[in-house]
């Protein structure tokens, strides 16, 4: 787990970040083939954050949360630039981290509740716990395991038993059997496991289409689908926010915000 052996995904991060602040990066040459950056290498945002934290090459207890937040936001930004489809939870985490970052940078008296230090500490503790379990798992797998390192007699004779017939079945057999019965006889309802998500592409398409129909500054929230369920709304908000940033960067929209945390207003550029 530790040491200098660099996981492929870590090399990917180096490549992606292309910056010497964190670790000896592998610089991307201009004209390189398309980068293969995806979030599939990670099991969710926390996993990605932990991988990023490791690139700081210090004890996890000493990592800089602010630097980590910046790393994550840059990763997401790069991924967005590369027009990669990001799962909603990565964007939600990005939004939360952006909030945390602004909190950490605010003067002390203006800090909201709960304090950003507390939120940062929570994130820190979560990363420590995940890392601890990851290491524990690795150490567990490295033990002298039956069938790999130590061996039993393959075909013991078996012992005389007090009862003449002993029936064998385990709890797993039992609950598995019940699962089978239920799966076999229950009415088939196919539930699409995929959560309702608005992809970045969809959001860009939607925001750029709607922006043309708005004459004046319009709240970002007015671009969201009205009758969507709460899950899709969360995803749509996050995606539309990133879409707005992307469109602003392309010079197609203007963004205005009255104050920190005030509503975001969008307008088609040049109107």
């Amino acid at each position: 787990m530790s040491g200098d052996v660099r996981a492929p995904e870590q090399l990917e991060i180096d490549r992606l970040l292309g910056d010497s602040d964190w670790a000896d990066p592998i610089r991307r040459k201009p004209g390189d083939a398309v980068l293969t950056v995806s979030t599939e290498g990670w099991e969710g945002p926390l996993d990605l954050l932990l991988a990023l934290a490791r690139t700081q090459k210090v004890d996890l207890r000493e990592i800089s949360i602010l630097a980590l937040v910046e790393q994550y936001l840059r990763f997401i930004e790069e991924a967005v630039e590369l027009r990669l489809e990001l799962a909603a939870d990565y964007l939600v985490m990005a939004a939360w981290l952006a909030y945390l970052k602004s909190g950490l940078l605010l003067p002390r008296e203006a800090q909201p509740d709960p304090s950003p230090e507390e939120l940062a500490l929570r994130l820190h503790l979560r990363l420590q716990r995940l890392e601890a379990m990851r290491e524990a798992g690795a150490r567990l797998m490295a033990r002298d395991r039956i069938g790999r390192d130590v061996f039993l007699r393959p075909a013991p004779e078996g012992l005389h038993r007090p009862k003449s017939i002993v029936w064998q079945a385990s709890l797993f057999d039992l609950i598995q059997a019940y699962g089978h019965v239920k799966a076999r006889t229950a009415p088939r309802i196919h539930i699409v496991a995929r959560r309702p998500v608005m992809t970045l592409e969809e959001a860009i398409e939607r925001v750029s289409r709607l922006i043309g129909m708005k004459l004046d500054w319009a709240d970002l929230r007015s671009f969201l689908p009205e009758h969507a369920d709460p899950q899709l709304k969360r995803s749509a908000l996050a995606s539309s926010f990133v879409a707005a940033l992307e469109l602003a960067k392309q010079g197609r929209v203007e963004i205005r915000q009255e104050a920190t945390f005030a509503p975001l207003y969008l307008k088609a550029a040049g109107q």
Partner: protein
Amino acid sequence: MTLSMSERLVEAVLFAAEGPLTAQEIARHAAIEEGVLPHLKALADHYSGRGIELVERGGRWHFQTAPDLSYILRREREEPRKLSRAAVETLAIIAYHEPVSRAEIEAIRGVQVAKGTLDVLMEAGWVRPAGRREVPGRPLIYATTADFLAHFGLASRRDLPGIEDLRAAGLLDPIDLAMESMEVRTLFDTDEADEGDGEEEL
């Protein structure tokens, strides 16, 4: 007695072997260049008079229980028997829905339950008759026993994973359905309502 590395390897190879091995096979498995016969003889001496002995039969070597202690071994007819799939399913349904009648078990399984299946479960001491249902025909109803809980390591029936837990653990995935459909079985009119009732009781 301190064993040499070669003797230790010969001992371990014989212990973990699927069956009797020739000296050549032992040497190969233990990656020993020199002859293993002296090691085998030393080990056989060492084990003499113990609970286990090392013996040679037709040029092959193996460990066995000392002959005077063989009475502790299982006799052939005592093979522990694995419950049939039908029996495990029936037991599971009784455990989740008890008390249930045979007709109710069949409705839930969607397959007929042979009389012998319930007999096996009762013989194993896991299922008992628990009175009669006060409906026309007064069918016998069945429930699980304290032995059942003990055998499966459950404090109570409420500790059985619920449907949601099974789903989350992947145990409701119809993986084996292809296999199932190949089984010849009698389909009953499954009354889904029955199932619902049972679940509520858990």
